[in-house]
Every structure is written in C-alpha cells, then in structure tokens.
C-alpha cells in the first residue's frame, strides 16, 4: 500500500513538473492551437497517447486472449482511418486561415449557423467523452488505492483540469508525450518480461496459441459483427475535436499530414503488441476471467506487487492523456464556436473564457461520470453520435466546390438525433445483458445523416433556382 501510494504520488508529481514546464498560456492562440508551433514528434505522440485509451489497451489485451489476431485485422480499419485523414483532411484543415476548431472550418465552408451547430455538438460530445474517461480513471484509482468513487472522480478531474486550465493545448500535448513514453515502455516491458520469464515453449508455442485463439475468434464472430466493428473503427473516432485541434496546431501542413499517417501506422504495431500480451496470457490466466480483467490478472500473476502498481499507473496515464486533450478541445470549441460568435471578441477575454470553460466541462463531466454504465458502452454511444453528426458535413464541405449550408445543418441535426436515439435505445434494451453486437448505432445514423445532407442540398438548390 505504501509503495503503491509512493508510485502514484511520484507519477503525479512528475506529471505536474512536466506540465509546469509547458508554461502558462498567455494568449488565446497559444491556449487553443499552441500558436501552430507543434513539431512532428509531439503531434504524433499526442495523437497516439489520446487514442490509446482503455479500449485500445485493456480492451485489446482481452480481445487478443479470446480472439487472437482477429482484432488486428479489424483494428487495421482504425489505421486506415488515420492514414486517410492524414492524406485527405488534416492538411486541408491546416491550410485554412483563422481556423481554431472544426466548427471554424465548417463555418468557413457553410455559414455561422452551421458553425454554431457544430460547436454545440462538439462540446456535448467532448463532455460525454470526458465523463467516460473520468469514470474509467476513477475505476483505476478505486482499485489501486481503495478510494470512494466520488473521491476518485474528484482526484482524476482536479489533477487533469489543473494543468489543462493554465497550460492549454501545449500543456496537454507535452503531458501526452510523457504519457506516451510511459505507455510505450511499460506495456512492451510487460510483454517482454512475460515472454522471457513465464511463457513456456518459445516461438512454436506462441504460434500455436495465436492460431488457436484466432481460429476461435473467427468461429465465434459473425460476418455482420466483423463489418459493424470495422465501421466503428473506421469512422467512430474520426477527427474528434482533440485530433482536429492537433491537425490545426501542427507546425506545417506537412507535419499535419505525416503525423496522422505515422499515427495510423503506429496503431497497427500497438494493436499487435496488445494482442500478443493477450496471447501470452492464455496459458497463465484462467479461461473464465472477464475480457477486461485479463491484463490485470496477468500482471498480478507474473509481476511483483510494485510492477502491478506500475501497471495501474500506466493505465491511469492512458486515461489522463485522453482526458486532458478532451477537456482542452471542449473548452476551445465552446469559446470559439459558441461564445465568440456572440461576444468575447478580445483575445484576453477569450483566453479567460477558455480557462473557465475547461473547469466547467470537467465539473459537468465529473457529475456525469458517476452514471456511466461501462467504459466501452459509453464510448460506443459517443462514437454513434460523432461520426453521423459531423463527418458528412465536414468532409463534403472540405472537398465540395459549392457546399450548401442547409445540407450541412440538416445533416448535423439528423445525425445527432438519430445517433443519440439509437444509442440510447440500445443501452436501455441491453440493460443487464451483454450484447455481442455492440456497434450498430453508427450505421443507421450515418445513413440518415447522408440522406439529410442530400435532401438539404437539393432543397437549397431548388430554392436558389426559384429565387433567380
């Protein structure tokens, strides 16, 4: 217990020291997009640290244990998504002048009403994502230190909010780099340690376990499930506000492009390592263990207690690195797309508003965190809303020569309503049960959003003809 507390306190002190060195943001442009000065390695590290959340660490280890390399093929869709964003969208975003958020980009392509709608949707989603991350971080602290749930929620929220409020995006990115280094060394360290000292049989035995798990994975997963997973991985997290902010804050358009392409490539090797941890756990962890507990049971069974605490610290860092990016992105979107549309034209007022917004989003997220049913279900609800609500309007707007505002507005409203409704219906209908197909909300909502875009496009075109 004492060692656990020392390790956690040491981690937090180092985190605060790193964040303090990032210095306080003194201008709104510094707070929101780090004055467009972020180099390739930091944008890459922040992107990877943000997307490696509980699902891409604990979740993938569990999937590796049960389904072998099946989820490497499914996860490849996530890599493809990042590479496509890097090739097609991130440089276009970075080129836009005076653009601080996705809402700004949508506002420039359509009109201010669309920017406001995009801003409201983005803030709501950032708050929901933040509540899921705060809940996940509180679960780790509860397990590690035996704290009450509300105390754990408060600790996670206060620590993350403290440096994000003052340092803005730069502090978020620099602490993300610290977290990324922790993930990279600790998770690979676990894999190598178990392979060297606990896994018997070498390469042949590993291949045997991998084949058995992968065969089991393909036998127990229907093609429909595979397709829905691939769609969720391909679209669910595409350009959520923290990623968009990194694209906008990159030093150059080249940095913006290359960082997303490298982050996509990194996703593949990361998934391979996580799945391999799941495979080496097969002879060491009992088969009746739940998927989410495989990693912790493996670490408990093989590593000294201090190693277990270090693993918990790594999990906490996985969560905080996603949370700080979400808080900063939510605050910038709220200030830029909502407050600055009506008031707060001055830079200093926007900076102050950005700081207060960070605190408010963290407070609301903490309040909601108590009600989050499970991390994965919470994330899937968020994905089911984000992609249909924003992506059709954004992507068509960036590539179309004459995008029509009514089309974007209808697409965003319909995508949000259908995504939220389907997500809530699935949550309620699955209460107390575990569904095998967890990701269908995104498909009908995306179809409705695209249909609404087409309808809006044609209505406005017809109205334009009638006016002439």
């Amino acid at each position: 217990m004492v060692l656990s507390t020392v390790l956690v306190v040491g981690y937090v002190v180092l985190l605060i020291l790193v964040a303090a060195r990032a210095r306080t943001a003194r201008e709104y442009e510094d707070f929101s997009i780090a004055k467009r000065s972020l180099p390739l390695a930091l944008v890459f590290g922040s992107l990877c640290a943000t997307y490696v959340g509980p699902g891409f660490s604990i979740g993938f280890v569990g999937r590796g244990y049960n389904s072998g390399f099946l989820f490497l093929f499914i996860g490849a869709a996530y890599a493809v998504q990042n590479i496509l964003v890097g090739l097609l969208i991130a440089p276009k975003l970075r080129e836009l002048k005076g653009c601080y958020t996705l809402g700004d980009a949508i506002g420039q392509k359509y009109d201010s009403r669309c920017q406001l709608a995009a801003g409201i949707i983005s803030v709501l989603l950032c708050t929901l994502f933040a509540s899921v991350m705060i809940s996940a971080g509180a679960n780790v602290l509860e397990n590690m230190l035996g704290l009450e749930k509300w105390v754990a929620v408060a600790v996670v929220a206060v620590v993350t909010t403290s440096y994000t409020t003052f340092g803005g995006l730069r502090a978020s990115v620099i602490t993300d780099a610290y977290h990324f280094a922790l993930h990279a060394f600790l998770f690979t360290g676990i894999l190598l340690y178990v392979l060297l000292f606990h896994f018997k049989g070498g390469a042949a035995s590993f291949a045997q376990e991998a084949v058995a798990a992968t065969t089991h994975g393909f036998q127990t997963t229907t093609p429909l499930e595979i397709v829905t997973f691939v769609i969720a991985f391909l679209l669910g997290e595409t350009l959520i506000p923290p990623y968009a902010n990194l694209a906008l804050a990159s030093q150059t358009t080249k940095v913006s492009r290359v960082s997303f392409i490298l982050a996509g490539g990194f996703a593949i090797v990361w998934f391979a390592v996580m799945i391999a941890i799941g495979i080496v756990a097969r002879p060491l962890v009992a088969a009746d263990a739940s998927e989410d507990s495989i990693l912790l049971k493996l670490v408990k069974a093989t590593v000294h207690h201090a190693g277990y605490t270090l693993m918990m610290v790594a999990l906490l860092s996985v969560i905080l690195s996603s949370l700080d990016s979400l808080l900063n992105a939510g605050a910038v979107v709220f200030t830029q797309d909502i407050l600055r549309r009506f008031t707060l034209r001055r830079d200093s007022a926007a900076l102050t508003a950005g700081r207060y917004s960070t605190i408010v989003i963290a407070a609301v997220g903490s309040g909601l965190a108590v009600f989050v049913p499970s991390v994965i279900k919470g994330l899937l609800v968020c994905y089911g809303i984000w992609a249909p609500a924003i992506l059709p309007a954004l992507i068509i707007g960036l590539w179309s020569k004459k995008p029509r505002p009514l089309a974007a507005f209808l697409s965003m409203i319909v995508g949000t309503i259908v995504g939220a409704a389907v997500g809530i219906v699935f949550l309620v209908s699955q209460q107390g049960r575990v569904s095998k197909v967890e990701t269908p909300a995104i498909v009908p909502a995306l179809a409705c959003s695209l249909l609404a875009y087409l309808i809006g496009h044609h209505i406005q075109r017809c109205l334009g003809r009638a006016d002439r």
Partner: protein
Amino acid sequence: MSVLVLPAIILATAVVILSGLWVTIALVRAVRRVDRPGAVPSTEPAHKNSP
C-alpha cells in the same frame, strides 16, 4: 511460417519502444526550449482562406 509470428511481434515491440524514445527526446527538447522567447514559431502560417 507460423513460427515467424513471434519474431514479428518482437519487431513490433521494438518499433513501439523506438517510438517511445523518439517522443521522449522531443519531450525533453520541448521542455528545455519552451521558456526561451521565440523558440517555437510556426514555420508555415496558414495561407489559404476558403469562403
């Protein structure tokens, strides 16, 4: 053929560790440089404005 799976995983592990080292070096540089005035200017200002 399947025996090559483990070496491929070791290679992936090495890539993750090297990525961690690369980002750590960038982090140390950023933390050292961040207090110097004018240390982190954008080299390419945004230039295209699309109506």
